[in-house]
């Protein structure tokens, strides 16, 4: 029986949410930056543990504070991908506060945290940044090279079905 789940991508503007979706759904990447207005919806069908899972992915326009986003965009989400830019501290300075807010409005939804644009830093630099954030389970990805992109969506899909 096919199952559908709503996944939202949130985070500051310019962290690469749209690029991650573009990479995951269309296997494409573009260096051009076009800001998302409001929300954009995409869809991808995955096979998870022999079940057909349809992900309806809501690419929500970036905001420095999640409480500024219309709640109705976030409500009903079965999973959350919180994205920040590993090269811009301002995009992860308030990470804990933002995650707490998301947990308060979506208590049942699994949340995965993504440090995007890993291709711009060396392995040591990445390690240094992630250590400084003091949050476990952050996955570094690159929408540009595609590294870890599929994996993170699949991980969230598994968590939503668990």
């Amino acid at each position: 029986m096919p199952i559908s789940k709503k996944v939202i991508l949130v985070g500051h503007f310019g962290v690469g949410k749209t690029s991650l979706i573009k990479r995951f759904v269309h296997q494409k990447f573009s260096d051009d930056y076009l800001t998302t207005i409001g929300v954009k919806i995409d869809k991808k069908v995955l096979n998870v543990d022999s079940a057909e899972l349809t992900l309806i992915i809501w690419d929500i326009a970036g905001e420095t504070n999640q409480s500024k986003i219309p709640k109705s965009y976030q409500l009903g989400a079965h999973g959350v991908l919180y994205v920040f830019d590993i090269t811009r501290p301002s995009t992860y300075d308030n990470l804990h506060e933002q995650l707490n807010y998301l947990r308060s409005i979506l208590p049942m939804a699994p949340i995965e945290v993504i440090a995007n644009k890993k291709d711009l830093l060396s392995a040591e630099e990445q390690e240094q940044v992630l250590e400084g954030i003091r949050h476990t389970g952050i996955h570094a990805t690159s929408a540009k090279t595609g590294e870890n992109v599929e994996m993170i969506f699949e991980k969230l899909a598994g968590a939503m079905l668990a």
Partner: protein
Amino acid sequence: MSEELGFKQLRKILLEQDWEERQELAQKLHDLDDQLNSRERLESKVNPILQDQENRFQNNFPKLFGPQITETIKTQNKDSQDEVVEALYPIIGRMIKKYITSEIQKLSDRVDEQMELAFSWEGWKVRIKAWISGTPQKDLVMSKLIEPKIEEIFVIEKDSGLLMGSFSRQVSVDQDMVAGMLTAIKAFVEDAFSSEQQELESIDYENYKVVLKSFKSFYIAVVASGGMTSSFRDRLDDLLIDFADRVLKKARDGEDAEQEISGSLAEYFNDFDDADK
């Protein structure tokens, strides 16, 4: 050995290598000359390079010249609006004229039909129907002239925007994404006007109208074309409430909810337009 013979021998020994190199060089020069002057040989060498250049040029053409061409066309259009209008006017004019003529012809045929029906049994039926239902007679006549038609129906979960079931006469776009976008539009409008108690009820798009009927945890979006009269809207509302009450509330918790809801939608609404006649 004479002195001259000895000298020749010495020259031969000293210059033999130079002589051989000169011979080789002369041969190469001759070969190169032949290659340059023989069209066939020159083509076989140069053609692959030219072909490569041509392919590269073709592939990169949009990237290299696209913006300039677009800019040139834009400037040209801006600077010579009169010429563009002059060139397009007859074509567009003819198209519009043809379309309007055909639509007026259709409308005229239908008005004729209605006029013929005015004092017939059908005409009296319309009058009685209008009197009983309280719907203005003009609405009933108009509904026959530009008949409204249900094109698609989506049953959508309110918060998540997930599609619970659908009915469509002609599937054109991804229904899951339409359901998501409708939910986003609905959420945006309701948030923008901070009206928790009020809900978006319809979206108009040229000849189409999307009617949104909200229930507690889901809403139904009906895409209809044609002129929607108040009687059509009333009848649609009644049927949607009945459908929600009888089918949706039971089906949504079932094993194969989407299939059950979609099947029931088809049963309920397939003949809806015909029933209006």
